[in-house]
């Protein structure tokens, strides 16, 4: 039977709508499962003013059949087949006639008993309790109250429609009684609408200018955009976030094309599109990466017959662009170098000093990074970029559009004629802003970005600010992920612990936490981020663990290790090899380190293993230092036959201590090589529990 729920609210933010629907679905699904009500489907629609669940549930709880057993058959009936006092007593105690008893066969033998059938409660009755409970237990990042009510929610709840099988399901939340009516578009067509079925509801609302399915609204927006752009041969400056927001914020999307005077096109595209996106929430229009003097807006209506909506938006945009041009012209009167001293008055963090202090540190860290990443040629430009990269914080443009920090600095650097390397590095040094975002395209940008992010992470950690659960006020997770992404994208192979050391040293005595503690914390923090980053690539968690288990000396190598494991996991040699390594680990567990003496190897099998090991070691060494873990791994697989025979024919735990120790030493040497590749003990093999050996 059809289920329809609409919670009518005042305009909710799109992020709240998404989480509320997920939560509602999950909570209601759980309640229905607990009540044993069959659910054929349960899905969601929404607008900023409506949270909608639609579903198909059984009419009532499943019929519950039971069996009540009494005494054994042998004790229940006399030889003549008549019921004994035991049977009579059982029947009486259960309130049934003795004739209703039957013989049932159980695991323990034959007993007498009777079957019960319990009719289920109607689903509507369950819903009348479960739905209000699900609604009132929703939680949002910021909750509010309104009027004189007690309910806390994202925005005020104004009406609740709840219908099951064509009848309204009645309940009360904070003085609001649910029913089977809602209203059309708040401004265009606010008439009351009665809905008995999902189809009725959807089509009646469509007539009242509400498209309830967000995917349909999204398609409408994209179709209209395509139709408007085709004649211009133009494209949309892509902005998934804005599209999501607008598809949420309108109930009936109408896309309009507006324009602005061409003379504003002298402003860089970044500034134009940000003024449009952030100021006006409209899309900018480009052709071949160049801004055109047009924009696309999405209105909550069917048409703009008189052109008021377009003209109004054009007027607002023109004012915004006028402002932006004013800022640009003002800002470029003062060079970035002249602005630098003003950074002394801009606080980075109370205990970590000003942005001027940060710039001084970045110069040193960047110089260190340049030396270790083949950046000698750009070292001088990188130093200048480090010195100037934060100066745009004191420009009017960044005050107006904070999201353009870095980019504005880069644009101004170019405008005042600083070298390209400097301008690009400044422009790119906040990249990547997310894992979907691009890494810096230039080496200088990449190194400056790493320096900046690591300076923030180590500083914040070093003064004892904790990053936990939802609390990450300095965006340290995003910063650490950014560092990892750059390292991987640009294949940078520097020593991570030494860089951390360097940054701590540059901070000097500002950091109050002991150095060892900072190192530990930062290492664990990066391990967590590297796990997350690789899990997003759908790599098995145990392979990630194994790759990370070989140490965090070189972040790029960690990535290559994990990739190699992932590439080889399907190879037929992989699992037998893993089992073999586990066998090696088990036998070595708890053994002290032993010294290997080749002269003491007597048996043929152990000499064979030793020579195989020698060859493997020689070949693998250079491969590992170049990060070619896949090839190294394949070579290590070749130890497998020799190890097999060794375990078969040779008694490792020999009675004579020197022989035993020597064999252990050989295995220890092998394990050492293996550990340079991965911590294989973390790999889970079919039929095995994590970490368990044979």
């Amino acid at each position, binding site marked *: 039977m059809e289920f329809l729920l609409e919670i009518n609210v005042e305009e909710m933010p799109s992020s709240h709508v998404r989480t509320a629907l997920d939560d509602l679905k999950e909570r209601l699904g759980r309640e229905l499962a607990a009540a044993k009500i069959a659910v054929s489907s349960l899905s969601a629609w929404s607008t900023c003013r409506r949270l909608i669940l639609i579903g198909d549930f059984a009419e009532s709880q499943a019929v519950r059949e039971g069996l009540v057993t009494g005494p054994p058959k042998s004790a229940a009936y006399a030889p003549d087949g008549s019921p004994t006092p035991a049977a009579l007593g059982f029947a009486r105690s259960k309130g049934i006639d003795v004739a209703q008893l039957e013989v049932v066969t159980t695991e323990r033998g034959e007993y007498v008993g009777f079957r019960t059938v319990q009719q289920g409660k109607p689903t509507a009755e369950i819903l009348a309790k479960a739905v209000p409970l699900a609604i009132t237990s929703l939680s949002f990042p910021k909750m509010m109250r309104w009027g004189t009510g007690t309910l806390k929610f994202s925005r005020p709840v104004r009406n609740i429609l709840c219908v099951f099988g064509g009848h309204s399901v009645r309940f009360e939340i904070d003085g609001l009684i649910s029913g089977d009516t809602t209203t059309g578009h708040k401004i265009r067509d606010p008439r009351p609408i009665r809905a008995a079925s999902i189809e009725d509801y959807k089509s009646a609302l469509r007539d009242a200018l509400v498209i309830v399915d967000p995917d349909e609204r999204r398609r409408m927006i994209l179709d209209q955009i395509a139709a408007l752009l085709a004649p211009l041969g133009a494209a949309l400056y892509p902005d998934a976030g804005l599209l999501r927001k607008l598809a949420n914020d309108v109930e009936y999307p109408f896309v309009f094309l507006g324009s602005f005077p061409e003379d504003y096109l002298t402003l860089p595209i970044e500034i134009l599109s940000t003024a449009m996106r952030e100021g006006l929430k409209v899309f900018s229009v480009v052709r071949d990466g160049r801004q055109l003097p047009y924009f696309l807006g999405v209105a909550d209506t069917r048409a703009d017959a008189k052109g008021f*909506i377009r003209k109004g938006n054009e007027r607002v945009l*023109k004012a915004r662009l006028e402002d932006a041009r004013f800022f640009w012209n003002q800002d470029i009167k003062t060079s970035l170098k002249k602005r630098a001293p003003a950074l002394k008055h801009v606080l980075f963090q109370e205990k970590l000093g000003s942005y001027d202090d940060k710039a001084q540190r970045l110069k040193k860290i960047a110089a260190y990074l340049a030396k270790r990443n083949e950046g000698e040629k750009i070292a001088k430009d990188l130093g200048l970029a480090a010195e100037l990269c934060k100066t745009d914080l004191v420009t009017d443009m960044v005050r107006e559009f904070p999201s353009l920090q870095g980019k504005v600095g880069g644009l101004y650097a170019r405008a005042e004629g600083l070298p390209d390397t400097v301008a690009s590095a400044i422009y790119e040094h906040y990249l990547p802003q997310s894992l979907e975002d691009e890494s810096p395209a230039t080496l200088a940008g990449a190194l400056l970005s790493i320096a900046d992010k690591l300076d923030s992470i180590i500083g914040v950690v070093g003064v004892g600010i904790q990053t936990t659960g939802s609390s990450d006020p300095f965006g340290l997770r995003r910063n650490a992920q950014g560092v990892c992404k750059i390292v991987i994208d640009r294949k940078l192979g520097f020593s991570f612990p030494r860089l951390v050391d360097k940054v701590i040293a540059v901070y000097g005595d500002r950091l109050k936490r002991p150095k060892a503690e900072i190192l530990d914390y930062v290492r664990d923090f990066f391990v967590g981020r590297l796990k997350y980053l690789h899990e997003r690539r759908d790599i098995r968690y145990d392979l990630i663990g194994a790759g990370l288990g070989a140490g965090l000396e070189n972040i790029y190598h960690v990535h290559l290790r994990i990739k190699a494991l992932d590439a080889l996991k399907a190879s037929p040699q992989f699992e037998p090899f893993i089992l073999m390594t586990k066998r090696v680990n088990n036998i070595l567990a708890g053994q002290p380190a032993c010294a290997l003496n080749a002269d003491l190897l007597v048996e043929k099998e152990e000499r064979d293993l030793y020579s195989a090991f020698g060859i493997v070691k020689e070949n693998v060494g250079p491969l590992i230092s170049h990060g070619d873990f896949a090839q190294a791994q394949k070579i290590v697989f070749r130890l497998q036959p020799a190890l097999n025979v060794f375990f078969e024919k040779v008694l490792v735990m020999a009675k004579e201590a020197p022989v035993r120790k020597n064999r252990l030493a050989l295995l220890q040497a092998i394990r050492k090589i293996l550990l340079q590749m991965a911590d294989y003990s973390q790999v889970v093999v079919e039929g095995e529990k994590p970490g368990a050996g044979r």
Partner: protein
Amino acid sequence: MSLQNLILNLQKFWADQGCYLAPTYDLEVGAGTMTPDTFFRVLGPRPWKVAYVQPSRRPTDGRYGENPNRVQKHHQFQVIVKPSPANIQAMYIDSLTALGIDLRDHDLKFDEDDWESPTIGAWGVGWSVMLDGLEITQFTYFQQAGGLDVFPIPAEITYGLERLEMFLEEKDNIYDLQWSDDVTYRDLHLKEERQFSEYNFVQATVKSLRESFALAEKEAGQLLGKGLFLPAYDMCLKCSHAFNLLDARGAISVTERVKMIAQIRTLVNQVALKFVEPEGRP
């Protein structure tokens, strides 16, 4: 419609909804929210409905009269309805219709924008109301003021009068607006914007401003000790304005900013506590 007719229309509309019309408050404030007609009405259990025009000073927004959109003093039309009725959004929409705006021809959006004023320890949840892309109103359900939870919950509707008038007159330049049929905004405010921009950014004496701040802060403390929270609140407003001027003069460092805001907030919190004492805390 001239700006003064806009004001008259809004006054008529909200008076008809039962609001008392408060006179403009006679101290410099940054927003209509800060005057006693909002600050004290939203605290405590008693229902209130009030509407008033409040000139609002934002010294840093001064542009020497050269920017067609920004001014260091603009005018707000402030409405408080407490408790917020279920149809408060519809009432607001009706107020626009009452101004002669035919919403069938326009695009009205309630765009997520939660409001916060750290100085007076207040925050709320709500929207910027956008009319064809122009922000004409801030619509907020107050949740806290003076650091105290408020209950019942008031709705606060703040119309930006110049913005709304620019929409109604379809003008691109604030100075072209008609204040009345024969007086323009330029006649009344251009000189003011030029002179006050010069004062705010260049001439205001930092030393005297710091002294004013300190004096008002001290006075507020003394008044609070005597239970005179209304004049104490006026002193907080004086602190706030001195702070805004110092900010425009570029005389406040980041740490100092945090410290001064906290100083004012602490006083405002004590004022709020004194105010709700006899009425009973919510």
